């Protein structure tokens, strides 16, 4: 026998945002007519304190056990109203929101039709909320250790920060040595500090820190578990398996440079003195900039955006190359005072502190800037004839002058773009991270939550999320650390309850759900021959439920009954003829 349903419906004006296009009073009156609706009201700002108090009072006085709020997007205020229900002693899941602002008032121009649509949406919510069930939030304990994958500047910065706070860190580095890309560069921009000094002191601190266990030449083979309680298998030197237990994961795997040979017009690997930017770094580190034959180049041409900002390769900007190229100009001007230095660029992007200043000061050091168009002005490289008085010629349509020009070159430096590692997808699968389409990991929210991911307890920092410079990587690393230390401090975390549940009797063991789950939350119980949902990992996306051929998986808070009732409610409104 079901309890008596007593629904309260609240229509928000949102000041004028909703009320100017939707006849809120009419919507309210329509709702009043529905069965089980005890009370229906409108208010100027439902989310305000008086608005919420209105709901609380009604819940208490009218003995409401279901609440519908028709206002803005649930992304904005669903959690607000759930808390309102909680404070009135009602389970927060006995609530449904109808979006009549973004979906109605902001996008329609006929008041009559907008009102009708609002009625339909709110009615759908009313029909749905009748079938809502109380759900209880759960918490899990957090293991205070952290696994950091990647020992570049981001991983090291995060490791030191956590370790200094007195917590255990396991740092897994795939390479022989830590340091990542920063260890490959001579000077950093914009202040031309030594990258080596910067990274090596950090590496030493990391190695000697009593709270950090460093596993070099190691790879994570398997990760299981969930926030607060992860387990991993790590293979060191390709064999010896190490098992680790930890509560949070920081993915700091960085990026790699694109293969310059792919950008065919620059003849990398075919013409002798075409180098990548990292090969030039190596020359600076060794202390001698020279051509392959050891000769001193007279004309050095630095070509930007090699494989970046071009739909044939990568559409995105690799972020650090412009400033690195300017840094090269400065270094070359000092190393080869008599050389001619050319910057062949597409757009000069001098974002970041002191970067515009670097551009201005570099421009004053006898550097020629030549601009090309990514669509139809790509520079072409060819071997020069003997009478040309140089080794190679770069021919291009110069954008700012409209002239077709040739640039004499004895050394060409390609500012190679950055891309995600080939293994990014595999590691993403292990850690439950998604890629954004460019082999870079997706953060939870591009603006509001740039370090967390859709898998709780897993954070992305540094260049594995997108190409970044050193300060940005470190900022992100430290932001992730703050989040992790906060959860460690609390000792437990709340986990989502709107998860999938397997009806063990109906499950036939086909494992379709295991394959489709994007969060690796479903495993197969070999003994019982049924699927098992890890409710901590499950995000309640519903993919499994919709794929299950037997209807054996039910998504809490998104049951078939709830969704079908909502649809019925929506469809029962007819436009008056």
């Amino acid at each position, binding site marked *: 026998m079901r309890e008596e349903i007593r629904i309260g419906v609240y229509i928000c004006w949102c000041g004028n945002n909703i009320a100017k296009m939707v006849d809120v009073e009419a919507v309210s009156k329509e709702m009043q007519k529905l069965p089980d609706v005890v009370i229906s009201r409108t208010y100027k700002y439902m989310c305000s304190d008086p608005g919420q108090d209105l709901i609380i009072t009604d819940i208490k006085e009218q003995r409401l056990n279901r609440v519908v709020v028709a206002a803005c997007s649930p992304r904005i205020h669903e959690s607000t109203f759930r808390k309102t229900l909680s404070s009135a002693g009602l389970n927060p899941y006995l609530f449904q929101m109808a979006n009549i602002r973004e979906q109605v008032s902001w996008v329609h121009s006929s008041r009559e039709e907008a009102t009708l649509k609002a009625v339909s949406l709110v009615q759908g919510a009313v029909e749905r909320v009748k079938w809502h069930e109380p759900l209880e939030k759960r918490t899990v304990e957090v293991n205070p250790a952290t696994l950091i994958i990647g020992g570049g500047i981001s991983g090291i910065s995060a490791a030191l920060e956590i370790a200094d706070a007195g917590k255990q860190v396991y740092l897994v580095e795939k390479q022989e040595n830590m340091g990542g890309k920063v260890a490959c560069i001579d000077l950093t921009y914009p202040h031309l500090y030594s990258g080596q000094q910067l990274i090596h002191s950090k590496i030493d601190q990391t190695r000697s820190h009593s709270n950090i266990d460093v596993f070099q030449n190691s790879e994570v083979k398997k990760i299981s578990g969930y926030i607060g309680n992860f387990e991993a298998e790590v293979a060191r030197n390709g064999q010896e398996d190490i098992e680790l237990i930890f509560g949070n994961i920081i993915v700091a795997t960085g990026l790699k440079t694109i293969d310059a040979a792919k950008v065919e017009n620059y003849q990398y690997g075919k013409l002798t003195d075409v180098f990548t930017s990292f090969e030039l770094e190596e020359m600076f580190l060794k202390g001698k900039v020279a051509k392959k034959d050891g000769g001193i180049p007279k004309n050095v041409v630095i070509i930007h955006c090699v494989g970046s900002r071009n739909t044939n390769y990568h559409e995105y900007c690799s972020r650090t190359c412009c400033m690195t190229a300017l840094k090269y100009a400065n270094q070359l001007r000092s190393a080869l005072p008599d050389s001619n230095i050319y910057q062949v660029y597409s757009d000069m992007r001098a974002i970041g502190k002191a970067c515009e200043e670097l551009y201005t000061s570099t421009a004053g050091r006898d550097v020629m*800037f030549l601009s090309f168009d990514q669509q139809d002005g790509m520079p072409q490289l060819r071997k020069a004839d003997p009478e040309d008085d140089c080794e190679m010629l770069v021919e291009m349509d110069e954008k700012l*002058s409209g*002239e077709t*020009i040739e640039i004499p070159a004895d050394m060409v430096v390609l500012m190679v773009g950055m891309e995600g590692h080939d293994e990014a997808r595999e590691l993403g699968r292990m850690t439950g991270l998604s890629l954004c389409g460019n082999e870079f990991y997706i953060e939870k929210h591009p603006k509001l939550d740039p370090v967390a991911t859709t898998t709780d307890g897993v954070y992305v920092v540094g260049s594995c999320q997108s190409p970044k410079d050193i300060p940005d990587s470190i900022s992100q690393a430290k932001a992730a650390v703050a989040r992790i230390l906060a959860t460690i401090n609390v000792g437990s975390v709340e986990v989502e309850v709107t998860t999938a549940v397997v009806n063990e009797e109906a499950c036939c063991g086909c494992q379709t759900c295991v394959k489709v789950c994007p969060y690796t939350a479903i495993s197969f119980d070999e003994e019982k021959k049924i699927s098992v949902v890890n409710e901590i990992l499950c995000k309640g996306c519903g993919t499994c439920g919709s794929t299950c051929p037997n209807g054996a998986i039910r998504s809490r808070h998104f049951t078939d009954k709830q969704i079908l009732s909502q649809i019925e409610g929506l469809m029962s409104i007819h436009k008056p003829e």
Partner: protein
Amino acid sequence: MATRVDPELKKDLKKFGIEEWNECYHCGVCTAMCTHTDKDVTFPRKTIRFLQMGLKDRLISNVDPWLCYYCGSCSDQCPRNANPGERMMVLRRYLTTVYDWTGLSKKFYTSKTWEFFFLMFIAVMVATAFLIFLPLSGEVFTNPELFINAQGGVKLNHLIDGVAPDQFVRIIEIFDWSMAAVVAGLLISNIVRMFYFVVLRDKTIKVPFYAYFTELWHLVWHFATQARFSKCEDRNYWLGHWLLMSGYTIMFIMIVVALPQFQIEEIKEWYHWQRLLGYYATFGILFFLIYVTIKRINREDVKSKYTHSSDWLFIIMLGLTVLTGILTHVFRIYGWPATTYVMYLLHLIVLIPMILVEVPFSKWSHLAYRPFAVYFDQLKQYKV
């Protein structure tokens, strides 16, 4: 055909006054400001770009620097302080040396020493030749009244020992004409070179024969009026410059073409046309000269801020010429024969080197290059 960029060009241009050239990032504010911007909206930005890229050929075939009158609006408004106005000025100096086949222009612009010694050399030559061949009559000191005319002024053409007055005027006249011929010859040969660089060598144009004549009026019109200059925002400069130019032209006609009517023994009434024209010319030149000198000293507007040594030299030489000319005239009227002779000689000592250096090789050559640039620019409209 691709044009080769040349970073070395910058080193050449440094001597003409360019320190840095990368400030400009081609936002186009200069183009938006300039009243001379035409349909393709590249003036003056495109020239600045050629400069940055070291496209020497493009710069040489480009007349845009001559079509700019340096009002300074572009430089005032430039968000990068790239100073396009001054760049155009520097390029005019550079182009003058490019057109000049003797190489003297480049020497004068890039070496103050060279210019100074050349001026001194001519000055000494003039003084020596004059003192040897046209010495002052000794009677000036024994019988000064012989040299005073009915009006109480000096009989200028009687001052030379052993040379009859007619003969003296004739000698000066012949000298004037020969000097005009030399200067014009140099200037014309340079204009021919300019024509070659700007029009003949440009493969993107094909000028029909008749156009050389139909477009010729631009040359005459712009020479006489500087109409293009008058389109600049600040018209004071145009007016002042026109005063100077007209004064100079009148003076030129009087001392070359009409010397026998101008350098006469009798002193006419002040309102006689010959004296009035002389006064107008002197006023015109002096007025603008003082105006720009004050501006250049105060350095208040962009145009007057960056004075090259060649600009100062021009102002000083022209100022001294006018000053000695006025003094010669004053001493003559007051009837001081010896002082008049000395001042007349000083006048020539300044005037002749100035004309020989400035007109064919230096700043003054713009009197020809500017109107020809307008003419050539019209010819360049005949695209292939």
